[in-house]
């Protein structure tokens, strides 16, 4: 492929190839301060290919593929090239990662312990993690949390945070432009702008820590807190993990230890501010 870049996010190294230079220029700028890959051997190859032979000139659009791919993947406009590259990397992790139990969850760390938040996209887990990341917590990831199969610690996958729609105004306002990606309008999930995690979160991305609290956030509802039983927590986490079944018994043991050690609550909140107050209160109670 004419253009290529290697980068490391947490424990995973990616080789991203592209038929166009644009997406890789954005990646190079936004991932500039990330610790470099140990060498050029990549855990995964991502390919941003032409979505059809005419697509180089006529309405250029990208077909995302790589070591792992989805036949049903929708072509994406070149204007959303950075998002396509991020999705390509996420897809390799979702379909291929085996070194940790992969949870579709955001995670932040404070005082050496980790708060994990899981829920469908649109539940607010990513925005909440991004906000906490700007308020003294160390952001570990807004999309994937890595549960270590031996220690039970959570490890970071601090990819670029994807701020969606309203969250862009809430957060982008008070962060330096150098930490912001281009405004991507009209993607399948609305407007998206990528935010680079803070410098210390990037520098400390290899530091794991034990989980202390699991939350199931739900944006847009009256404030409410409900404990979630271990059985239901276990079931919901197996559905929020793309590699639980693939890991076999080590996955079973790691998830069983997690649900028997980490208290879980469902929290509803109408807006970000209530959410942060609620989280800080529950965090204090959990310790």
């Amino acid at each position: 492929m004419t253009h290529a870049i290697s980068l490391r996010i947490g424990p995973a190294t990616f080789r991203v190839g592209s038929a166009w230079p644009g997406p890789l220029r954005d990646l190079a700028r936004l991932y500039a301060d990330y610790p470099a890959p140990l060498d050029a051997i990549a855990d995964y190859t991502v390919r941003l290919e032409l979505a059809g032979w005419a697509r180089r000139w006529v309405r250029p659009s990208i077909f995302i593929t790589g070591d792992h791919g989805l036949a049903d993947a929708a072509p994406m406009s070149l204007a959303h090239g950075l998002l396509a590259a991020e999705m390509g990397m996420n897809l390799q992790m979702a379909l291929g990662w085996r070194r940790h139990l992969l949870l579709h969850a955001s995670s932040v760390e404070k005082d050496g312990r980790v708060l994990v938040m899981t829920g469908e996209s649109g539940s607010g887990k990513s925005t909440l993690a991004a906000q906490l990341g700007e308020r003294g917590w160390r952001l570990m990831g807004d999309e994937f949390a890595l549960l270590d199969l031996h220690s039970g610690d959570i490890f970071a996958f601090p990819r670029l945070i994807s701020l969606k729609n309203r969250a862009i105004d809430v957060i982008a306002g008070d962060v330096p432009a150098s930490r912001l990606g281009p405004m991507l309008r009209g993607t399948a999930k609305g407007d998206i702008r990528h935010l680079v995690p803070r410098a210390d979160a990037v520098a400390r991305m290899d530091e794991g820590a034990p989980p202390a609290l699991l939350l199931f956030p739900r944006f847009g509802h009256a404030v409410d807190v409900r404990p979630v039983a271990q059985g239901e927590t276990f079931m919901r986490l197996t559905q929020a993990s793309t590699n639980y079944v693939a890991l076999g018994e080590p996955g079973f043991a790691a998830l069983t230890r997690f649900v028997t050690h980490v208290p879980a609550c469902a929290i509803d909140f109408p807006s970000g501010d209530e959410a942060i107050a609620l989280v800080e209160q529950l965090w204090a109670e959990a310790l």
Partner: protein
Amino acid sequence: MGGGPLSAALLVAALRDPASVERLDAAQWNGLIAAARAERLIGTLAVRLEGRAVPETARPLLADARLDAGREARGALWEADRARAALASLGVPLVLLKGTAYAAAGLRAGQGRFIGDLDILVPRDQLDAVEAALFAAGWEWVKPDPYDDAYYRRWMHELPPMIHATRDRMIDVHHTILPLTARQTPDATAMIAQAVPLDDDLHILSPEDRVCHAVAHLLADGDLAGGLRNIWDIYCLIADLPDPVPLEARARRHGLLSHVRQARRLADALYGQRRLRLTSWDRIVLRRLLARDGWGRETRKLLRFAFFLRSHWLRMPPLMLARHLWTKWRKGHRPR
């Protein structure tokens, strides 16, 4: 544009001579891994490289692949056990084929192998009973399309594929090993008669028939998709033959002698000592098999398409091919 040497060549060299990987640089490792994943040989490669000096960053990746392969084999054996339980009441000899058979018998060809669907061979006259028993045990048709169904029943060597409702695993029930229309007509009854029991229910083909089946599946039927994996199977199966002589006679009996000889040459050229003389047709097949670049992408598209057409051609006589393609074309099948 190709991104370094053809990665498939790197993959074949690494399987043939594992020590050679110690001379690879990072770019070549990336090509090797991309090709191994695209050809679904990453597990086989990882098992083959166990104990070799590999770069620090490649070690966890290969370890993951070995663990995956182990779980893959267990999943395949569990499917075989479920099929055994479903068919136990019929008293039908259940012959495992391909990957599941190699894993069940602990053959070298099964080590690290990607397995995927469960393939079984049953006597043709038991097909309806087997189909009913599988339905009762929770399997369903994958594609309930009447045209495909009739086509499969009349011309194909197997039932239409079935999938288990809750386990999401597929099963292919064969009553012979080549489409009825293919020129070669292997003797499935003889294969079942010579099958080797693994335990009181499950059987696998005899050593010679295992080679013949793998060859039939690859050369006579396939468009060589997964060819590198199939030839690796054949290379291992031939190497494990207690005595090479009976293979020729068995191949002749199944009408596959020329194909078995070609497979032997290809296996030797890719994975062996590379001493056997190749025909020009062999070289074309090898060019098709090695058509993958350093990014894991398929290259030589025209050559690949030619083999795609060939696979349909081999499957049925010309007149029927025209009607089949016309029906599919009318129904909107466009080769992607």
